[in-house]
């Protein structure tokens, strides 16, 4: 058959990295990215992009660990290369602190990040309200740079990208053989997935270049993540809240919480407020589906529902999605050779 035509719907970190993986595993494929939003207007652009995994209740831990490890290894190599600054990938060290002892002493990812150890008493003195803490070093993917870098890599392999709102996957059946659904929170409408729900996050992006370490409260609500040019201060986790408008009361509240952990933030300048809807689900939907209407088939691979952990596992899930695309191609080729008989 002619080169399989693959459409990737969605241009956030999941869509772009999945498209890239597909070009790597299937160089003969024609890959096109379709999305109503591109950087800097995707959910990914709001996120800090810290590699600290979120635990999906519905996925086996060893699978999540493998996804994280692949992503960490992939980004680590970029961070240690001349491309690091363009790709927006850099190492950052810091502390995760707890007011109450965490349920598990060691998170499943402790041996993938670097230098993981409990904080010393002297280090904890900086946080008088917290009784326990973990120090480690991890990676951060700054957006827009990372998304723009992915777009550049895709363009150089001949991938076309179009601004297009896809309302129904079926509308693509005549132009493409395989559709990869990386629509993130958009999948709620696009494929009617009621198990997918937003967890609204409001963040502040501020100018505070003297902040070199990250600080994260183990409750996941308060965090300070230094990026290349701005520090992300967070945040909120509001289940089923679809509003993309910043709330000024929340802004002040986030700022105060972060200043109580890092008083020097009082001098932060240029405060920008952003909102993103984490595309949350019990587990990432990473599976094949066959849509058919009147004898015509459209092969679909879903890769969405990464919630708060998109950056942490993006490369691992992208590779798995690319593998599923490979299976789809094999199925198509099987069908087409059978049709010749």
């Amino acid at each position, binding site marked *: 058959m002619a080169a399989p035509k693959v459409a990737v719907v969605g241009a956030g970190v999941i869509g772009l990295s999945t498209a890239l993986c597909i070009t790597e595993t299937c160089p003969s494929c024609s890959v096109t990215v379709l999305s109503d939003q591109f950087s800097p207007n995707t959910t990914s652009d709001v996120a800090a992009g810290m590699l600290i995994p979120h635990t999906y209740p519905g996925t086996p831990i060893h699978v999540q660990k493998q996804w994280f490890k692949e992503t960490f290894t992939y980004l680590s190599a970029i961070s240690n290369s001349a491309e690091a600054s363009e790709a927006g990938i850099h190492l950052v060290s*810091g502390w995760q602190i707890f007011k109450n002892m965490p349920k598990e002493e060691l998170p499943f990812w402790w041996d993938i990040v670097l230098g993981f150890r409990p904080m*010393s008493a002297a280090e904890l003195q900086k946080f008088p309200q917290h009784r326990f803490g973990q120090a480690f070093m991890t990676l951060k993917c700054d957006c827009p740079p990372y998304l723009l870098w992915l777009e550049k890599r895709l363009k150089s392999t001949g991938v076309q990208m179009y601004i297009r709102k896809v309302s129904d996957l079926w509308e693509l059946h005549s132009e493409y053989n395989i559709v990869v659904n990386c629509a993130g929170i958009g999948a709620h409408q696009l494929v009617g997935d009621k198990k997918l729900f937003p967890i609204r996050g409001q963040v502040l992006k501020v100018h505070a270049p003297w902040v070199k370490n990250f600080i994260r409260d183990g409750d996941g609500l308060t965090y300070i993540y230094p990026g290349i040019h701005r520090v992300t201060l967070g945040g909120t986790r509001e289940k089923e809240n679809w509003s993309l408008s910043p709330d000024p009361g929340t802004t002040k509240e986030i700022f105060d919480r972060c200043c109580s952990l890092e008083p020097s933030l009082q001098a932060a300048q240029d405060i920008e407020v952003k909102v993103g809807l984490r595309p949350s689900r019990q587990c990432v939907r990473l599976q094949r589906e066959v849509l058919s209407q009147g004898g015509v088939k459209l092969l679909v691979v879903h890769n969405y529902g990464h919630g708060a952990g998109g950056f942490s596992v993006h490369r691992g899930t992208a590779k798995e999605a690319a593998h599923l695309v490979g299976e789809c191609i094999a199925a198509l080729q099987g069908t087409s050779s059978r049709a010749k008989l």
Partner: protein
Amino acid sequence: MRVAVIGAGVIGLSTALCIHEQYHGLVPSLEVEVYADRYTPHTTSDGAAGLWQPYLSDQGKLQETLWNKETFDYLLGHLGSPAAKEMGLFLISGYNLFTQPVPDPSWKNIVLGFRNLTPKELELFPGYSYGWFNTALMLECRSYLPWLTNRLTQRGVKFFQKKVESFQEVSGDGVDVVINCTGVRAGELQPDPELQPGRGQVIKVLAPWVKHFIITHDTKSGIYNSPYVIPGSKFTVLGGIYQHGNWSQENSAQDHKTIWENCCKLLPALQKAKIVEEWSGLRPARPWVRLERETIRHGHVQREVIHNYGHGGFGITIHWGCAMAAARLFGTLLQEKKLASLPQPRL
């Protein structure tokens, strides 16, 4: 009582502040004046990156280790204060890298979270097989010196732009004590063969993606002659030059090449960094810090001098401990003078 401080780098200004803070209440007539030909941003201190880190070994000079600790603790205490940003003070973590195992440094329990590097971390630095990771402090003199200047100005301390050629010059006119914080050029006021320049050159770049300091060590080349990368609040400082006895303050093309190539090899992510500035300075190197009193006699004139110079490449690291020690010497001087000026009982 008039006190003349010569030198307006980190040592001169902090010593002036320490003395004024501690004794102005006790000696209401205390007048402190600062004399210097160079002020911020043209002092040696201004060129330094500002990382708090002593040399690897204190070579038994326990006193200096204590002064380093005093400085670290003092600065750590100021971290949470609103003044921190204005002072140019912030926490920073990073690596020290070696080609072979070395004993732990004298300062391992002064800094925060000191530990050895794990094998996975060492993989990031080919050619280095051993190392440390810890959290320390940055004190950027481009901010700290103006901050000290403001505190001193608020206290009524006066500043004079002047190249002082001799102690006599400032100590006539009723000046009771001279505080000698002249750094590398102290030999011009009083010959000191122990004091030598330790020439350094640095390249300042824009690389805000670098969040950790990296100091490499090569026992063969000696301290600071191995590449280092120190990210500041605006620029990242690349260095790795230490030339003992070299008085040149001109940037050398050869040194530039050495620094740039070695730092990019150490951290490939630097290759795209834009160069903003190049600077060379002279570390005031001495086998040990000269921090002592001296009474200089000139005929029947007696001048009291407190020397506080020779801090090599660790001036910022040790400055507050030395300022406090200099202030204590000043206190002893005051006590002696008071005793001398008490009315003698008539016999």
